[in-house]
Every structure is written in structure tokens, then in C-alpha cells.
């Protein structure tokens, strides 16, 4: 058997391979040779073979069959064998293979070897890949070596101890006595690794931390010597004496000084000294300064020192070296929470970093910019951030868009500015906006009542040219569906109104429906919008009918369902269509997502999906003239919500229908329901989780008592939303004849908002034998005194009765 080729030969051969396949072939041949050589138990050439195996392992080829050979090499007496054997063990073996435990005995012997280099090898291997079992067995040996006077071994033992502690934390106490003298060493290598060991122990155990606090003076002394000692050739790196050790010590000081006043005070002087004396022309000086700044910010330093630290960071930001700028931005991000004002001073520099070419710096600058936005600078910062959004890489756009939305929500100076900002984001980064942004935006737009015309006009213009950005198209479709009438009537006050015909609006919505770029959800939005426009537009109803009926046979099940239901609305329930498709009421800001929120969810956009929370969708016809308005002098009162149009003969039936709709939120496609079932409706009402937090103790009042008709109000306040009062009225009849067709209407002053839910029935039985119950919800954000005017109409003893009254005796707890 010829001698196996040398490592050098193998490498040379492999390098001549021109293709991957050739290389693989050579390697396989060599592996076969190595394997047979291993089988022959050839001691002479084993180390050579293992070296070759390690090379092939580095290139990515399997080398596991060499594991046992490594062990044999370790057991050999020769230093060369041991060296390669240990290297092989570190590269090829780990705790997943059971084989590694066989090493334990070898390592134990080698830790006590006469040659220090062999001991060093053993320590190195144990420190790299020792498993917990091995560490447990050998910790004693390591601890012995930690106390030796040989600095070469001592430093290795220190790092090995760190590894042991990481693997078996319970053994930490064992190393405690050995650490006593560690810092007395002169050798910088030992000092360095000792500081690492101390750092590890302090980070793991608060007791150790308290114990080692007494070392602070010693550490300060060492640091001082390093700075003051002048030029020492052996430790010099670019003119600074052992910067690595300085950085390590600073880090340990940081951990020791955190949350501890005494230690922090002991360090103040030395930190100031390092901060002012270190030369910053080279990277080493900056590394030390950076570490100093981090330490100052973390411990309980005095304010002068903190200002010094932030100024150093500010200087870093202006440095030409990108690395320095990067670390400065990173540390400013960490400190912006605690020292907000100081960081604000550097805002313009940070904003300039947004324009840097370096991706890492841009990301840091963007995060920092968002942290710095506040009420004063929001306009300027937003301008910069929007500009950044235009030009940044795609991986940033989603984060940037979300950040802009959040900041705009918190600090928007005006509604118009807010909507403009959102529009800008949607048009520039429309496809990167996160999904949850769409409902949030819709809610925001709904709430800015005076901006509806402006918003819908801008959205219309935005999608006119390009309807590929899904979130933008979704929001635009929804708005056009809601406020299309404002669009065609050209009512915009904020900017020049555009002339749009109903057909043009329908054109754009239909193109969204047809387009291949539209997602299924977007199509749903568009179809619903078209449907809503059937009540808002006057001349194009037939076109709408046609579009809706076409989609009744769409392949997309979602679209098909909607179209079929809308068709049914046209055909069989045309009388209900206006009521159903009326304007959405103002939605309350959802602050929490608990079930106790009185949230009027946007059920209309997804009518096919049954809401699990029964949304009390308010039906508010803005165009319907209201008797009460006339009565109450017009401008002062918000339009009230009547419970039902009175023109229907089967008024009760309609009420029931609406009652059903209130509860389920979807258009009823079943045949007309039966007469009102009060228990069902009442159950429905009471099952709403709205009444969960009842604050008891608000006295109820009698709001009206005349001609045998008595109306009582009982109050409930929601704990989660203190500006909402829920009033339950109970109407009872003490006369000897029933009151039929009873309708209760209410109006409140302008600062309030009112919502009337459907009553339990329209007949109040005689002799107080039953009551009509109805729920009113009053939103009172300004906590003004509650006043109400009520109008009652009913039929009694064959004649129609009507009465007006004002209710002023609300108890203070109901509105305060």
C-alpha cells in the first residue's frame, strides 16, 4: 500500500479540478483511500489522513468516518498527532455523537500533562465543544489550572471555565475562590480572560454581581494605568495601550455599575477621563469611546457626564467613517427613551442619514426618526419621512408605511393633514401597506365627517390613473361607495371640485372589478360600493342592476354570493334597499379590542360574513326630513334616528325585519319573518355583550307620565367607555285600552350623538300588563349635561295621539 499523499498534494490536485463533478470524483477517490488506510490501523500516516479529511470537510464533503480516528490521535503520545486529533475533534465532533464521551479520559490526562502546550490543547478543546457531562467531570481540573502561575495556561483555563459555567451553571460557585487573585495579574492575556470570566459570572447570578462590586476600585485602577502608562510596545495597537482590555473592563464596569449608586460614583471620574483623553483619529480610539458612552448611559451617572456622552455620539454622527455612524445611530436608538431631549438636538443630522447610501445606516436612521417624532416636529419630520418612503428600498417600505401611520395618528395637527398624509402613503407605497391599515383608515375617514367630500374626491383622482395598488383601491372603493353622491355633486370645499358623472364613477368601479390585478377582497369592496351607489345615484340604477346580476354567476364564490344577495335586494326587497344601504354612522374609536366595546363594526363591507358580535348598525338617513328638527329650531339638534318609516301597513313586520337585521347585520334573504317575537328580540338585545359592565347605582327616572302613558328611563354606563350612556326606556300603559302603533322618537343637543335601537314591539297593553322596551345609546364625549326632547305617537281609543316633552331630570351620574 503506497504511502497516502500529503495534504499539500491533495490540495494541489483538487485545485486542478475544473468542474464540480471532477472535484467530487477526486475527493471520493481520496476518501476511499483514506478509509482503507484507516482500516489498516496505520499509525504513521493517521495524522496526515485526518488533516486531509478536515480539508475535505471544510469544502463541504462528509467526513464523519474520521471521528473515531480523531480519538485515536488524541490518545497518541506525539504532539503532532494530538494537535490534529484535537482539531479534528473540535471540527467534526459535538455532543450529539456519543463518541465524544470517550474523549473525557484523554482530556483528563492531558490536562495534567507535563508539556504546557498539550495542556493548552486539552483546555482549548474542552472550552470549545465540551458537553455538560464532560464539563462536570473535568471542572475540577480546570479549576486547578485556574490557580496555576503559568499565565499561558491560566488564561486558557479562564475561558474554559466560562464554557463550563455556560454548560453547567450550578458549578459557578466552584470557581469563586479561584477568582480572588485573578485581577492581580500583570499579564494582559490573563487579565483579559479574567474580566471575561467575571463578566459571565456577574451576568448569570445577581449574588455574584453583588459580590464582585467590591472589585470596582481595582478595575478602575487597572484602567487608569492603561491610560496613563504611556507607550508600551507590547500592548500597543495604533498608539493606544491594549484597547481590547480597556473595552472589556469598561463593559464589566457597566454591568457592575448598573442600578448601583456607589459603584457608579466610583467610576465617574475614570469615565470622564477616558471620554476626554482618548484619541479619536483611529478606529481603536472610537471603539473605546463608544464603549465608554454605552457605560455612561447605562449606569447611574451624573447628568454632566450624560450630556458629554450624547455629545460624543453626536460627533460620531458627523464622522466620515460609516461604521462609526452606524454604531452612533444604534446607541442613540437605545438612549432615545431616557434622554429624549438631548437626542432631539441631533435630529437634523439623523434625518440627513436617511439619505445615506448605506442600507444599514438608512434602517437605523429610519427607526430613530420614528422615535423622535413628537407634536412639535411632526410636520417637518413627516415631510422627510414621506420623501424617504418615495425613494427607499422595497424592504423598508412596509415598516416605513406602518411607522408613518402610527406617528400620524398620534400627532396629526389637523384632520386634513392626516388624510393628506395617508393619501400620500397610499399612492407612493400602496402595495406595501399592511392589511390592518385598510380598516383603520376607513374608520379614520368615516370619523372626519367634514372631510368626506374632499377625501372621496382625492381618492377618486388617485385610482383614476392606476388601480393596481390593492390597499389604495380598497379604501377608495369603500369611500366612493359611501360618499359617491358627494363626488358627483361636486361639493368639495377644500379644493377645486371636479366634474364627475355617475357613469364615470361606475366605469372606474367596474374596471376594478374586471381587472386581473384586483385581489378577491378588492373585488368584493368594489361590488359592494357599486351596490351602495344604487341608493345614492339617481340615473344609473339600471346599469347597477345589470352589473350586479352579471356577477351572480361569477366563478368567485365570494363575489357570487354578494351579487346574488344584492340581486335579491333589488327584486324582492326593494323597499328595504334605501334603509339598508344608508350612510354609515360615525364609528367610535376602538381603543381596546375587548368584547365590551360598543363598536359599530363595518358590517356593510362584508355582508356575506356573519359578524360574531351582533353589530347594532344604526340606520341614519341624512336626507330624511325630521319633524323634530322643525320643532326644535333646526340647527341645534343632530338628526335623530327614527326606528321605522311609518308608511308601511305591516309596521310591526318591518320592525321585526329591522330588528333581525340589527342583530345579524346581513341582508335577510329568507322569506319575510313572522310577527315580532319580543322574547327573541329582547334576548338578542340582552345578549349583546355591551351591557357587561353595568355600573349600578344610577337612579332611574320617569321621563314622561301623561294620559296613562308612563315612560321610565334606566341608565347603564360602560366602564370601558365612559362617554357612552345606555338608556333603557320602558313604556307602560295604565289605561284600560291598548295603545297601538307606538313610536318613540328622541332628539339631543348637538354635542351628543344618539342611537335608537328597535323597540320590543309597537303595542303597549292596557292595565300595565306589559311594557315596550327600547334601548337608546347616547355618546357624550364632552360630558355635558344630558337633555332630551321626546316625541310620542300612538293610537289610543281609535284616535291618533301625539305628544312632545322635554326630559331634563337626568341624574348627574348618567352623564358625568
Amino acid at each position, binding site marked *: 500500500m503506497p504511502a497516502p499523499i500529503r495534504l499539500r498534494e491533495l490540495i494541489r490536485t483538487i485545485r486542478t479540478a475544473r468542474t464540480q463533478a471532477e472535484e467530487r470524483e477526486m475527493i471520493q477517490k481520496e476518501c476511499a483511500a483514506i478509509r482503507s488506510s484507516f482500516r489498516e490501523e496505520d499509525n504513521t500516516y493517521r495524522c496526515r489522513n485526518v488533516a486531509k479529511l478536515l480539508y475535505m470537510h471544510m469544502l*463541504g464533503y462528509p467526513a464523519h468516518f474520521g471521528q473515531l480516528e480523531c480519538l485515536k490521535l488524541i490518545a497518541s503520545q506525539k504532539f503532532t498527532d494530538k494537535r490534529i486529533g484535537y482539531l479534528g475533534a473540535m471540527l467534526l465532533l459535538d455532543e450529539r455523537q456519543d463518541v465524544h464521551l470517550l474523549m473525557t479520559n484523554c482530556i483528563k490526562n492531558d490536562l495534567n500533562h507535563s508539556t504546557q502546550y498539550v495542556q493548552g490543547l486539552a483546555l482549548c478543546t474542552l472550552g470549545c465543544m465540551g458537553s455538560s457531562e464532560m464539563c462536570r467531570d473535568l471542572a475540577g481540573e480546570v479549576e486547578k489550572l485556574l490557580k496555576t502561575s503559568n499565565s499561558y495556561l491560566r488564561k486558557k483555563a479562564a*475561558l474554559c471555565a466560562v464554557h463550563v459555567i455556560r454548560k453547567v451553571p450550578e458549578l459557578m460557585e466552584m470557581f469563586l475562590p479561584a477568582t480572588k487573585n485573578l485581577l492581580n495579574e500583570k499579564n494582559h492575556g490573563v487579565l483579559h480572560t479574567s474580566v471575561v470570566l467575571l463578566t459571565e459570572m456577574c451576568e448569570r447570578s445577581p449574588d455574584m454581581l453583588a459580590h464582585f462590586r467590591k472589585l470596582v476600585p481595582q478595575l478602575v485602577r487597572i484602567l487608569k494605568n492603561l491610560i496613563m502608562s504611556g507607550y508600551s510596545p507590547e500592548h500597543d495597537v495604533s498608539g493606544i495601550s491594549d484597547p481590547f482590555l480597556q473595552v472589556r473592563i469598561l463593559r464589566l464596569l457597566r454591568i457592575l455599575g448598573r442600578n448601583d449608586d456607589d459603584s457608579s460614583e466610583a467610576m465617574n471620574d475614570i469615565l470622564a477621563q477616558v471620554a476626554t483623553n482618548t484619541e479619536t483619529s483611529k478606529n481603536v480610539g472610537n471603539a473605546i469611546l463608544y464603549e465608554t458612552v454605552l457605560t455612561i448611559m447605562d449606569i447611574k451617572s451624573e447628568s454632566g457626564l450624560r450630556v458629554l456622552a450624547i455629545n460624543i455620539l453626536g460627533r460620531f454622527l458627523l464622522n466620515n467613517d460609516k461604521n462609526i455612524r452606524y454604531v452612533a445611530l444604534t446607541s442613540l436608538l437605545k438612549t432615545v427613551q431616557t434622554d429624549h431631549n438631548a437626542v432631539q438636538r441631533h435630529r437634523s443630522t439623523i434625518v440627513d442619514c436617511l439619505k445615506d447610501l448605506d442600507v444599514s445606516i438608512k434602517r437605523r436612521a429610519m427607526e430613530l426618526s420614528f422615535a423622535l417624532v413628537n407634536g412639535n416636529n411632526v410636520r417637518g419630520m413627516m415631510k422627510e419621512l414621506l420623501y424617504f418612503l418615495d425613494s427607499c428600498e422595497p424592504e423598508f417600505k412596509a415598516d416605513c408605511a406602518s411607522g408613518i401611520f402610527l406617528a400620524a395618528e398620534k400627532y396629526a395637527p389637523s384632520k386634513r393633514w392626516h388624510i393628506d398624509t395617508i393619501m400620500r402613503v397610499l399612492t407612493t407605497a400602496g402595495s406595501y401597506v399592511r392589511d390592518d391599515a385598510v380598516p383603520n383608515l376607513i374608520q379614520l375617514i368615516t370619523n372626519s365627517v367634514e372631510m368626506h367630500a374632499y377625501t372621496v374626491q382625492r381618492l377618486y383622482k388617485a385610482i383614476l390613473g392606476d388601480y393596481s395598488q390593492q390597499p389604495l383601491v380598497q379604501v377608495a372603493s369603500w369611500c366612493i361607495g359611501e360618499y359617491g353622491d358627494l363626488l358627483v355633486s361636486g361639493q368639495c370645499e377644500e379644493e377645486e371640485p371636479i366634474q364627475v358623472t355617475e357613469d364615470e364613477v361606475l366605469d372606474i368601479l367596474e374596471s376594478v372589478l374586471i381587472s386581473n390585478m384586483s385581489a378577491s377582497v378588492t373585488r368584493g369592496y368594489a361590488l359592494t360600493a357599486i351596490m351602495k351607489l344604487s341608493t345614492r345615484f339617481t340615473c344609473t340604477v339600471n346599469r347597477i342592476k345589470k352589473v350586479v346580476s352579471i356577477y351572480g354567476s361569477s366563478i368567485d364564490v365570494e363575489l357570487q354570493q354578494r351579487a346574488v344577495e344584492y340581486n335579491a335586494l333589488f327584486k324582492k326587497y326593494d323597499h328595504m334597499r334605501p334603509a339598508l344601504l344608508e350612510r354609515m354612522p360615525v364609528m367610535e374609536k376602538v381603543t381596546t379590542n375587548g368584547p365590551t366595546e360598543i363598536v359599530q363594526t363595518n358590517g356593510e363591507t362584508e355582508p356575506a360574513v356573519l359578524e360574531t358580535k351582533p353589530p347594532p348598525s344604526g340606520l341614519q338617513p341624512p336626507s330624511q326630513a325630521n319633524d323634530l328638527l322643525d320643532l326644535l329650531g333646526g340647527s341645534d339638534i343632530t338628526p335623530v334616528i327614527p326606528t321605522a318609516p311609518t308608511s308601511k301597513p305591516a309596521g310591526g313586520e318591518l320592525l321585526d325585519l329591522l330588528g333581525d337585521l340589527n342583530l345579524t347585520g346581513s341582508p335577510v334573504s329568507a322569506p319575510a319573518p313572522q310577527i315580532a317575537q319580543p322574547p327573541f328580540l329582547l334576548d338578542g338585545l340582552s345578549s349583546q355583550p355591551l351591557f357587561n359592565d353595568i355600573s349600578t347605582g344610577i337612579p332611574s327616572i320617569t321621563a314622561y307620565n301623561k294620559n296613562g302613558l308612563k315612560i321610565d328611563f334606566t341608565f347603564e354606563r360602560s366602564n370601558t367607555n365612559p362617554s357612552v350612556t345606555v338608556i333603557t326606556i320602558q313604556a307602560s300603559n295604565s289605561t284600560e285600552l291598548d295603545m297601538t302603533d307606538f313610536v318613540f322618537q328622541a332628539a339631543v343637543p348637538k354635542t351628543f350623538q344618539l342611537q335608537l335601537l328597535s323597540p320590543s314591539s309597537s303595542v303597549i297593553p292596557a292595565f300595565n300588563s306589559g311594557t315596550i322596551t327600547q334601548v337608546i345609546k347616547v355618546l357624550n364625549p364632552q360630558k355635558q349635561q344630558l337633555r332630551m326632547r321626546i316625541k310620542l305617537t300612538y293610537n289610543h281609543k281609535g284616535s291618533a295621539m301625539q305628544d312632545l316633552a322635554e326630559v331634563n331630570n337626568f341624574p348627574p351620574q348618567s352623564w358625568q
Partner: protein
Amino acid sequence: MINAILVFNNHGKPRLVRFYQRLAEEVQQQIIRETFHLVLKRDDHICNFLECGSLFGGSDYKLIYRHYATLYFVFCVDSSESELGILDLIQVFVETLDKCFENVCELDLIFHMDKVHHILQEMVIGGMVLETNMNEIVAQVEAQSKLEKAEGGLSAAPSRAVSAVKNINLPEIPRNINIGDINIKVPNLSQFM
């Protein structure tokens, strides 16, 4: 701590691979490839720090790299190491290699992979920095190489034959043979020894 030290050339061929974390072979190779792609995209004048969270399964890790001629030196570290300090460490490593190999170039790393590992072992143990003093490291490496050489090194067998012959205690060959009147000069046959 340092998670991994990788050295590869401008084409992605690995020249030194050292992981201080348990990872399967395929994962190791994948990391090498992806790191190479990440680092290749960087221009020369942008900063030497890269986020690489997905590679190592944690968001804490950064890649700190330096480009020297045809080689990339990449250190993957977590947040307990100072970024600027690691940059200096890479510089010290390269300067040490330079001292050990006399004007080191890529070929030296290729053909003496084991020696580079041994140098690295004197600087970093278990992911933690052991020694940063260049002269100290070089001295220790030299001492260990001397030990190895004394035993004959890796390519042991052939040179052992030569040294074995050199050590044979051949008896002293007389230069002059004087028997009575006869004077024979023995020719110098040392080239055969």
C-alpha cells in the same frame, strides 16, 4: 460571543471555516453560501456591519466583515461583543497571519489550513477572545511548531528515513592507513554517507 469565523475568497470558496455553535453540516454550508451572497452585494465604502438574524435563528446576531484583497474575513457575533472591537480583532488576526507566514497571501491559507486553525486557536477559544497581543500569539505558535518539527511533522515518514540514516553511528573511517612503510591514503567517500 463569536458564533462563527469564516474566511472565503471573492468567488465564495471557503478558506477557513470555524463554527462555535452546534450546527449540522448542511446548515454550515448553507450559512457559508448565504453569508457570501450577503457580503458580495456590499460596496466598499459602506459600513462593515450587517444584520443576519434569519441565518442563525436569532435576531441578535450581526455579521462584521472586512475585505482584504481577494479574501473576506467574516465574524458572526452576538450583542455581547463590541462591533468596533471586533473590527480591530479582525485586523489583529490578519496581521498575525502576516507575521506567521511572511507576507501572507491566499495561497498560504489554502495550503496551510491546519496552521491557520492553530493560530486562530491561540486567539479565540469557544467563541471568546483569548489573546490579542500579536507577538504573544506568534511566539506561542512558533513554540508549538518547533515541538511538531522535533517529532517530524505531518509528512513524517519519508523525512524520518533521512534523519534515521543521519543518526546511524558509523564507526570512524581512518584517513590514512600506515602499516610499516606503506602509506595508503583513503579516498574521501563522504558523499556516500
